């Protein structure tokens, strides 16, 4: 009997000879990270639990990405606790302003194929793109892991998602995952491993796969895994031959298999106020937008900025639209400058910010007033997440966001190219 990707990684990590959905296994994480929203809580819980030291300081990272630059008077306290934890327990790996943690973890190779990684954030599922069993935990669990080096996990059942064929023009990884979320709904993947395969998946870049894994949590997924191929190996700096085991078994036990024809995908919009309220863009015309946001751990990577720059080249942003662009990391920002994307975006009228969680964490830089409408490339459009509870948020790919910034309403890029 074969195994799912999730089972394979959990067996590899725990040393158990076999496991099946529902089994409780004790994992030993290869890396953990906590970010600035939780630093005081992790510090206090860790001390209260009575731990004197972290189990392995080389396996711990602390990142500031939600609260830097700080915007409310209580925010600096969270940064102080981050420094305090690092000082007291000898953590050298502290990233203060290098970008969004979920971009830095795979980019800096802290999360690698075959690893088990826990982070105090729901979008930790992102690194499943490189074959890493990564998922979110709370700050109390993080404190316990920091002290013990262990955490229990229930072996998830799995859904295989096979996508074959070629994507149409103007259709991206974001459209794939939005379509799947619309089908599975907000709880259709709860506790499960979503595992992606097929010729269209093979053709995706690692950046695109990161977008897909990032959003599996929006249907409740525990992890969103891809097999390791040569692209992954190159991205993560590992030997491909050593990770051939992290591939699909024909006889693995999947509770559900979904098939998609890539050619059937179109640009999709997740409409206010639920991520699973997904509609083809042709059903969402005549929605005027006050603000457009390109960024976040979902879609702030180089290929996202490239797609936006391609559409905005020589064009101007609608004068009634505030257009905010936030690269996902410092290195992406530098590459985007070198490639000319940032210049194109600025000339078009974008406000380009330093890499951080930006508008997606709903505390700074572009909060919405009552009745305003935002189109964002991020992952959530919940009530009140980005300002007023009376504002509306729609989600799309960076290409749709760029086209919409030009016209001032939700727009299929195809209609601009005619």
């Amino acid at each position, binding site marked *: 009997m074969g195994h799912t990707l999730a089972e394979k990684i959990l067996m590899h990590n725990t040393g158990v000879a076999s496991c099946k959905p529902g089994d409780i296994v004790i994992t030993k994480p290869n890396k953990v990270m906590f970010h600035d929203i939780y630093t005081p809580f992790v510090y206090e819980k860790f001390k209260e*639990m009575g731990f004197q030291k972290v189990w392995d300081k080389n396996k711990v990272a602390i990142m500031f990405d939600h609260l830097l630059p700080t915007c409310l008077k209580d925010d600096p*306290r969270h940064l102080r606790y981050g420094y305090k934890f690092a000082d007291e327990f000898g953590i050298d790996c502290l990233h203060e302003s290098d970008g969004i943690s979920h971009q830095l973890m795979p980019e800096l190779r802290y999360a690698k194929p075959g690893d088990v990684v826990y982070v*105090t954030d729901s979008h930790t599922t992102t690194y499943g793109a490189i074959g890493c069993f990564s998922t979110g*935990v*709370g700050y*109390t669990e993080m404190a316990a892991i920091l002290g013990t080096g262990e955490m229990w996990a229930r072996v998830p059942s799995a859904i295989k998602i096979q996508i074959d064929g070629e994507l149409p023009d103007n259709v991206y990884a974001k459209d794939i995952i939005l379509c799947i979320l619309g089908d599975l709904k907000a709880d259709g993947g709860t506790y499960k491993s979503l595992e992606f395969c097929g010729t269209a998946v093979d053709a995706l870049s690692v950046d695109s796969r990161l977008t897909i894994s990032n959003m599996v949590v929006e249907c*409740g997924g525990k992890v969103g895994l891809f097999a390791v191929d040569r692209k992954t190996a190159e991205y993560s700096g590992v030997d491909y031959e050593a990770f051939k085991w992290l591939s699909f078994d024909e006889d693995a036990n999947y509770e559900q298999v979904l098939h998609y024809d890539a050619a059937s995908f179109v640009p999709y919009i997740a409409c206010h106020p639920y991520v699973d309220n997904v509609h083809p863009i042709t059903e969402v015309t005549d929605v005027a937008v006050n603000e457009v946001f390109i960024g976040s751990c979902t879609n702030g990577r180089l290929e996202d900025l490239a797609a936006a720059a391609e559409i905005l080249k020589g064009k101007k942003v609608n004068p009634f639209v505030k257009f905010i662009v936030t690269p996902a990391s410092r290195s992406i920002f530098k590459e985007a400058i070198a490639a000319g994307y940032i210049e194109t975006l600025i000339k078009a009228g974008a406000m380009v910010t330093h890499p951080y969680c930006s508008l997606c964490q709903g505390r700074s830089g572009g909060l919405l007033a009552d009745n305003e409408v935002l189109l964002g490339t991020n992952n*959530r459009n919940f009530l*009140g997440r980005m300002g007023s509870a009376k504002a509306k948020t729609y989600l799309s790919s960076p290409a749709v966001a760029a086209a919409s910034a030009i016209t001032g309403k939700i727009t299929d890029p195809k209609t601009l190219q005619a």
Partner: protein
Amino acid sequence: MQRVFKGKVWKFGDDIDTDIIIPTQHVTIETMEEMKWHAFEPLRPELAKLITPGDILVGGKNFGCGSSREQAPEVICALGVKCVIAKSFARIFFRNAINNGLLLIESPELPDHCEEGDIVTVEINSKLVCNGREFAIPAMPDNLFTIIEDGGLVKSMKKRNNIID
């Protein structure tokens, strides 16, 4: 912990996300005592002041979906809520609640057969009773029930580290 107790119901729908339970702009408030007054603010700003200790929240599917913020179960605990009953829970919220000693009970049926203000009787690992009807509930896995019995993961870890309160 008490094996049988009753409480007054506050009723919610499906997909109550953590941004509704505690919006991001309030998650850096220094104490739970202050933070708790913002619980459920985007949906029902008056609610935090109305909930009294011992009350029970009843939700639909996927209660606690969204971010991993543990402030969500913590503010619910801080309001004195005894337990949350829902058709289903989101994964991280489920773990976070258990780790804070907040009892969660999955019941696909009860939420469709109770109204706000009703009284629900909970018999842990056995059944729920409301308006004369009984609803069976599953027993919790041992490893989780131990954490709840210890009073949360912090107390569990203190026990492991031989620290006496």
